[in-house]
Every structure is written in structure tokens, then in C-alpha cells.
């Protein structure tokens, strides 16, 4: 590969990583506060639909973005109501949110737009277009949020309290603070970040919503966060790794690879598209298997107060 190809690979790495970064940060905040979030996928998917639908209806970027943020926030509040207030099963809730979002987004899209579950493509005036180095505003926002969230979690009092909630909620209660309030707070930011991830898919990366467009990215982001040991910088690194593999894999499509040591007609094998598509999912499993040592989850993760 020459320099230009490396550069374009780098540009697409950041482009495909951005939604993962938003989601990983969202998962990081809720899990640091002790709430498992397997609903990232669903929150992102329904937000993406909200952005696509609101954009198509109103023709306003603000409305599209606002709708996505609102939907992400509302789903997170439902998350809090079920899991924080009523101590519901956090893992089951995540799957429930994702299933409902997958169904609801298509039901509404079919009823409102009648295009087989897609929303109409949005014009460029309703999208985040590339600013510098081929990246749009949301990419810079995602990258900028990493140090902000690091500072918030590790250098502010509220951040300390939030982390304490995930480690030892009883102690936080004993200190006279409300575990419920802290967890709702973490979930609120979590929802807004998922809203940004969903908006990114529709308003920056693509131009419309299509069914199941998140394609497992929510779970990948969660895996990236685990791989990044529940730390913003680690999570960013893992997201960029995923993004790089994804971007590189797209480039491998149709490329022939010569296998050394085989007879001539067999030595050139074209990599099947499906193998490339499966690569990020396999990578997720491999990373989760923790081939780089064990990480420690927040002690009170998944345990209601």
C-alpha cells in the first residue's frame, strides 16, 4: 500500500469508529455506576430511526438531532425505571429494549414511509458533512468526549461518587448520597450518548434509516469497553482497533491472497465477502476471550442496591 491508501484507511478508521466510541462511553458511564447496559444496540437503533424520521418530516437538522437525543434519553429512563427503581434483571432488560426497538422502528417506518422499513434519504443540508481531514463534526465530538468523560469520572467529586456507586453502593448510601439519583444521572448521559451514536449513523455516515442498521455495533461497543477495562482511553483504543479492522476488511473485498506452499492453481484464493463481514464479530469474541489478560468489572455491576 502507498501513502495515499494508508491515509484513506486512517480516515475511514475514524469514520467507522465514531458510533462505537459514543456507545462505548455510554456503556462505560452506566456500568461504572453499576448498571449493565446490553440495550446500547436498541437505544442506538431507535435513536437512528428517530433522527431519520424527524429529519424527513421536519426538514430540520436540529429536530432530527433533538429527536434522536430524546429517544435515547427516554429509553435510558425506562432502563432506570425497570432496573434502578424496580430492580429488574438488567441483562434481560437490555435484550428486551433491543428487540422492541428492532420491531418498533420497522413498524413505524413501514406505516409512515412505506419504503420497506427505510426512511427517505435526507438532503445534505440535513447532514453533518466532512469538515477537516474528511471527518465531520460528530467524529470530533466523539474524540473530544473521551478526555471530558475521563476528567468527569476521575477528577471530579460527582465522578468519584459515580464510581463508588458501581463499587459499593451501600457505602454511598451511608455517606448520605442517593444511589438511585446517581444511577439515573449516569443513565441520562448514557441515553444522550446513544442518541448521538444513532444520529451519527443517519446524519453523518449514511443518509437514511434502514432496518437493523446498527448490525450488532452496540454489543461491539460494549465488548470494546470491557476490552478497554472500563476506562475511557482504553475503550477508545479498542473502538479504534475495531474501526481499523472494519475499514481494513472492507478493503480486502475482492482481493486475492496467495497461499504459500500450495500448487499453482490453488495458491491464489479470493477472500469471500462473507468472511470479511464476519471478521468484526469474530474479533469481538476473540477480544472478549481476554487474550490480553483479565479485566475487573465494577464490583457492584448488575447488583441492584
Amino acid at each position, binding site marked *: 500500500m502507498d501513502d495515499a491508501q494508508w491515509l484513506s484507511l486512517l480516515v475511514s478508521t475514524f469514520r467507522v469508529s465514531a458510533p462505537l466510541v459514543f456507545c462505548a462511553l455510554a456503556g462505560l458511564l452506566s456500568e461504572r455506576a453499576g448498571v449493565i447496559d446490553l440495550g446500547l444496540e436498541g437505544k442506538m437503533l431507535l435513536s437512528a430511526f428517530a433522527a431519520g424520521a424527524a429529519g424527513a418530516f421536519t426538514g430540520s437538522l436540529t429536530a432530527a438531532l433533538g429527536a434522536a437525543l430524546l429517544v435515547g434519553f427516554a429509553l435510558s429512563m425506562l432502563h432506570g425505571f425497570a432496573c434502578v427503581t424496580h430492580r*429488574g434483571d438488567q441483562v434481560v432488560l437490555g*435484550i428486551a429494549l433491543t*428487540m422492541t426497538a428492532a420491531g418498533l422502528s420497522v413498524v413505524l417506518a413501514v406505516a409512515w414511509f412505506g419504503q420497506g422499513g427505510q426512511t427517505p434519504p435526507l438532503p445534505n443540508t440535513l447532514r453533518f458533512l466532512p469538515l477537516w481531514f474528511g471527518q465531520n463534526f460528530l467524529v470530533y465530538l466523539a474524540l473530544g468526549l473521551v478526555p471530558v468523560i475521563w476528567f468527569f469520572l476521575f477528577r471530579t467529586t460527582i465522578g468519584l461518587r459515580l464510581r463508588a456507586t458501581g463499587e459499593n453502593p451501600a457505602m454511598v448510601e451511608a455517606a448520605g448520597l442517593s444511589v438511585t439519583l446517581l444511577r439515573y444521572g449516569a443513565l441520562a448521559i448514557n441515553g444522550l450518548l446513544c442518541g448521538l451514536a444513532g444520529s451519527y449513523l443517519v446524519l453523518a455516515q449514511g443518509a437514511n434509516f434502514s432496518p437493523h442498521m446498527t448490525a450488532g455495533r452496540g454489543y461491539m461497543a*460494549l465488548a470494546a469497553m470491557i476490552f478497554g477495562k472500563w476506562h475511557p482511553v482504553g475503550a477508545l483504543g479498542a473502538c479504534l482497533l475495531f474501526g481499523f479492522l472494519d475499514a481494513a476488511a472492507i478493503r480486502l473485498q475482492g482481493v486475492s491472497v496467495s497461499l504459500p506452499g500450495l500448487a499453482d492453481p490453488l495458491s491464489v484464493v479470493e477472500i469471500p465477502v462473507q468472511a470479511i463481514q464476519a471478521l468484526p464479530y469474530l474479533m469481538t*469474541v476473540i477480544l*472478549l476471550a481476554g487474550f490480553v489478560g483479565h479485566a475487573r468489572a465494577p464490583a457492584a455491576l448488575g447488583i441492584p442496591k
Partner: protein
Amino acid sequence: MELGLMPLVNLALALAVCSAVLAVVGLPPQQVFTMLLKGAFGSAAGWSYTLFYATTFVFTGLAVAVAFHGGLFNVGGEGQAMIGGLGCALIALSVGEQLATDLAAIVVLPMMVVAAMLGGALWAAVPAVLLAWRGSHLVITTIMFNFVASSLVAGLLVGPLKAPGSMMVETVAFPLSARMPGMHQMLQRFGVDWPRTPLNLTLLIALAAAIAVGLYLTRSRLGYELRTVGFSSDAARYAGIQPDRHRVMSLLIAGALAGLVGINELAGAQHRLLLDFVLGAGFTGIAVSLIGRNHPLGIVLASILFGGLYQGGAELAFELPGFSRDMVTTLQGLIVLFSGAMAMVSAPLLGWILNRVGSRDG
């Protein structure tokens, strides 16, 4: 009383939210539900399709329930079913092709059943072992394996398994020896006239599987140990039970059960391997298991309910413009929400209402 009532209350809550969604998109809820019920249970053909879908959901529901009893959440039914289907198709296209006589079905079909179970178990084995060995997050690994399974089957279907000369992404048709006899054919032998539908003898395998799972969970030592692990891993270890061994085994059994979907859908109905034959049935299994309270009898009943929703939804999608089959997916999600995640919300509420009613009677 509460045991039977809770699922109904949760179902009613989910239906209420669905009605609201229908009202929002401008479809009259009452008419939709009437048409849905009529499509599913209004005729012999409707019933037959309902039972066909129910057969698939018994397998995926049991696959979720067996893992649940071990304290595990198996969301990989989708991928396990897909690889089960691949297994039974490979047998059908290799052995079945060579033994293409009518009698050979007695040999080929059992082999396909075993291959489907092995395929599903194999696909559950990797996440299971990673869970036991590395503590990998089972929900994430099984979901990732769903995507990998779909890519694998797609890759094989456009490559080595593709029917030559066909534009469709599917294999050639299975030989006659690899086709599960249809229910209408069987009933005809007894002089019963039954509409020709995909419903086939796999229904009996599903019932046998439900009974076997029931015996395993409640009447066998292994099942008892598994439930102990699910109830309290520490207590199990104290009692000399090895939790990880039981977790892996329950996931292998779950995978094998999910794999049997391939027999119903491919050997029984499609008679070829094609893309997307699972159609979300793995996820339906989660709702089925929750509504059926993880009990085999409950799962059979819940499967009939969901079979009806699928069949009714399919009919409606034809008849009612603007209605999407994904309404059923939404309903499933809401059912998992109310009966799984928010059980703590609705149960006290129900208890309060029952108390009020009870005190008025007394």
C-alpha cells in the same frame, strides 16, 4: 393462581402498548387483533400453520429455558438454529442423495436429526467453553455468533453449496428420502382430511423434546444439579457440584434443541437450505420461555400463542396495507420487557389488586 395469572397480565400489558402503537400509526387495534386471531385460529389451515410455527418455537423456547435453569441467558438460538439447519442440509445433500429411495427416509431422517442437534450444540460450544474458561460475556459472544453463523451460511450458499444454474441463494432441493412427511400425508393414511400446509411430523419431535427436557430438569440428578447451579453457584460448589461443567452441558443441550429448528423448517417445509430460514425464531424463544415461565408445559402453550401471532401477522401483512410483521417482533420485545425485566413492577401491582379483590369477597 398467581402462577398462571402473571403471564396473562404481562401479555395484556404488552398487547396494550401494541394497541397504542397501532393507534399511533392509524390502524384500528380491535380490527387488527380480530383479524389476527381469525388468521391464526379461524380455520383448519390457520391452525395448521400456527402449529407449524409453534413447533419451531418449542425448540427455541426450550433452548432458552434449559440455559435459564443454569442461570445463563442464551441469546444465541438464532445462530444455533442456523448451523443446525446447515448440519441437516449437509446430510440431506450427501447421504440422502445416495439413498434416494422411499424406504431410505427411515435411515436418512434420523441422521439429519442427529446432525442438526450436533450443529446447534457445536455452535453453542464455543461461547460455552469461553464462558467457563475465560469468563467471557455469554450474551455478547452468543449474539456475535449469530452474526457469524449468518455470514457462514451465506458464504456457503453463494459458494460451494449453491444450486448450479439457479439465481436463488439456496441449495438444490433435498431428495425425497430427506423430507419429513407432512401432517396432511400422515392424517390421510388414517382417513382424516387435513389441509396441505408445512406442518409436519417434527411436531412430534418437539413434544418429545419438551417431555425430555421436563424429565431432565425435574426428574434427573443432572437436572437437579443444574438448577442448583442456577439457584446458587456457591451452594452448588459447596455441595460438590462443578458449576462450569453443568453450565457448558446446559448450553450444549440448548444448542442441540435450537438446532432442531432446521428439521422443522428445512426437512419439513422448505426442502432445501436457504438464507434466513430462522427468521428471528431464536429471539422469539426468549419471549416464549419467559411467558412459559421456563417450564416445558408453559413453553408448549406459549409456543402455540406465538405460532398464532406469527401466522396471524403473516396473513395481516398481506391484507392490511401499512401493517408490518415486525409488529410481532415489537410485541415479543414488550413481552420480554414486562415479564422478564419489569416482573418486579407488575407482580406487586397484581398482588395489590388481588388483595383488594380478595378482601372485598371476604
